[in-house]
């Protein structure tokens, strides 16, 4: 069974953390992953940086750009992860844009993911139908779970479709907005979380975009299985470096 499904099957709310691989320093990737697990994080999205991350906000874009400058590439990342499963057991997901994967070769990319122990992928600009038609079999072959997004604007019909081809969780975008904006959740958003929850989908939902502290984590996970924090964690790395990761995680889980 895929580590993602295992984790989703457990009780309790899941805290998932996103960061850009190769940031703040090129070689920080593995140790950040290890620290996050050590501090009780349930799942990690490892950002594969891209030159033109059009669904990301300024914080993640800046960390992406810095990581690229540091020398991050797909090959470097796979190399950094090659021994990760010796020390880390929580689910690891690579989140990145489709073009670098395409250049790597989707098949080769998936094979490498499997090889190093990555469990799934989130590719914002790979549409569900293209995945469905062209890439599903490759992902399956390598035991990878592809995670799809839904937003407050996603129709019931489409949610059902996404649910039907999902295998892990559904990434529920808190509001139709790029990452890192917003300030806690309002009535509209919590109503949306509840609405989706009430659909009783086959796959659990994890909320992303806009979670940054204990309060917003609680709000997000009232109706969902878990939440992903990205920009807030990157800001923490930018301000405090990699030393105080425990502070950040404790603040959320407090």
């Amino acid at each position, binding site marked *: 069974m895929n580590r993602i499904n295992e984790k989703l099957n457990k009780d309790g709310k899941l805290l998932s953390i996103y960061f850009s691989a190769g940031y703040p320093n090129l070689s920080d990737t593995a140790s950040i992953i290890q620290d996050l697990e050590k501090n009780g994080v349930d799942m990690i999205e490892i950002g594969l940086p891209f*030159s033109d991350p*059009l669904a990301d906000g300024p914080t993640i874009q800046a960390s992406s750009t810095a990581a690229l400058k540091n020398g991050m590439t797909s090959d470097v990342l796979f190399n950094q992860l090659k021994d990760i499963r010796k020390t880390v057991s929580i689910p690891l997901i690579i989140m990145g844009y489709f073009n670098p994967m395409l250049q790597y070769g989707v098949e080769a990319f998936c094979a490498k993911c499997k090889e190093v122990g990555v469990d799934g992928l989130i590719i914002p600009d*790979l549409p569900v139908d293209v995945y469905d038609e062209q890439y599903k079999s490759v992902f399956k072959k390598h035991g990878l779970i592809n995670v799809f997004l839904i937003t407050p604007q996603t129709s019931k019909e489409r949610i059902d479709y996404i649910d039907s081809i999902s295998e892990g969780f559904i990434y529920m975008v808190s509001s139709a*907005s790029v990452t890192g904006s917003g300030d806690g959740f309002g009535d509209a958003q919590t109503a949306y979380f509840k609405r989706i929850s009430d659909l009783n989908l086959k796959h659990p939902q994890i909320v992303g975009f806009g979670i940054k502290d204990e309060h917003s984590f609680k709000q997000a996970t009232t109706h969902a299985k878990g939440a992903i924090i990205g920009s807030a964690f990157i800001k923490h790395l930018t301000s405090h470096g990699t030393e105080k990761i425990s502070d950040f995680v404790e603040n959320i889980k407090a």
Partner: protein
Amino acid sequence: MTYNINEKGYYGEFGGAYIPEMLYPNVEELRLNYLKIMAEPSFKEAFDQLLKDYVGRPSPLYFAKRMSAKYKTKIYLKREDLNHTGAHKINNTVGQILMAQRLGKTRIIAETGAGQHGVATATVCALMGMECIVYMGEIDIARQAPNVARMKMLGAKVVPALSGSRTLKDATNEAIRDWINNPVDTHYIIGSVVGPHPYPDMVARFQAIVSEEIQWQLKEKEGTEKPTYVVACVGGGSNAAGAFYHYLEDTDVKLIAVEAAGKGVDSGESAATSILGKEGIIHGSKTLLMQTKDGQITEPYSISAGLDYPGVGPMHAHLYKTGRAEFMAITDDDAMLAGLELSKTEGIIPAIETAHSLAIFKYKTFKPEDIVVINLSGRGDKDLQNYIEYFDL
């Protein structure tokens, strides 16, 4: 084989809609409605009326006597430079603003490089009384001050793109981000035949008026609807798409697409996307683009801000791949000289983008009986500073 788009939104293997889910409702709404709306008689009427009374269409098909004598062939110039705001870009923005109205949108966003598309968008927004936000790279804002001023005169808000290389590619990223953040009331007017399906097709259809007119105008002048060649420069590819459109499937008519070689195709400072690019995804479309081995999009270079884009529309990727169109790459220097030549021989100062297509006569010989139609995509007023400095006028 067809050279036009198929029902799935692809030109051969290029095209599609590689967009984040957040954009799905917007793009899908457009995809489901654009052909229906364009077919409505009231839409057609409004579009035709504005093209005629506001844009000033038909744009003339002008026989360039002195250029023809010089190059010993029959050269016709399709005068898109005479359109309101000075380029072909307005054909598309007029169409899209009417589309946006019919989709009930109240807020318009756009990206711009040289500022021509930004001006054309600000113009139609002023015309319709719609809010307009134009994203433009911080560097382009500095080097295209007159077009920034025009947009402001027209009531648009110009927002600097501060990320990446701070040019067109990044302005496009910012516009897409804005759209993600404003999924309900906003229409994004893309300025070329790029972006996710249905944009390339919609923009091509709005620009198709160019070849539609060439057909009857040439019939009047030469007794045939078919030129031997149609020539156009390619940034994203919209003016070429418009000039080629009605000739796509008629292989009697040869198509020449001219890209910017910058300081030379192999100089590392170039924007010859088709020749240098590899298949990939840029701004929601599978196409040819300039990128690193690792799949990072690289920054192109051209003296003309309008050709300075690392991708090319999927139609052109297909025309390149299939060999339907011949692709030529013209350097900065050749383009500048060709712009000066047209000014001095025909009294028309072309946009530097357009000047690239005029430079092909240096490299390609035509027969005396050939009819060569060049799409004169824009006027050079916006480029005067560049010409002045280059030629030390």
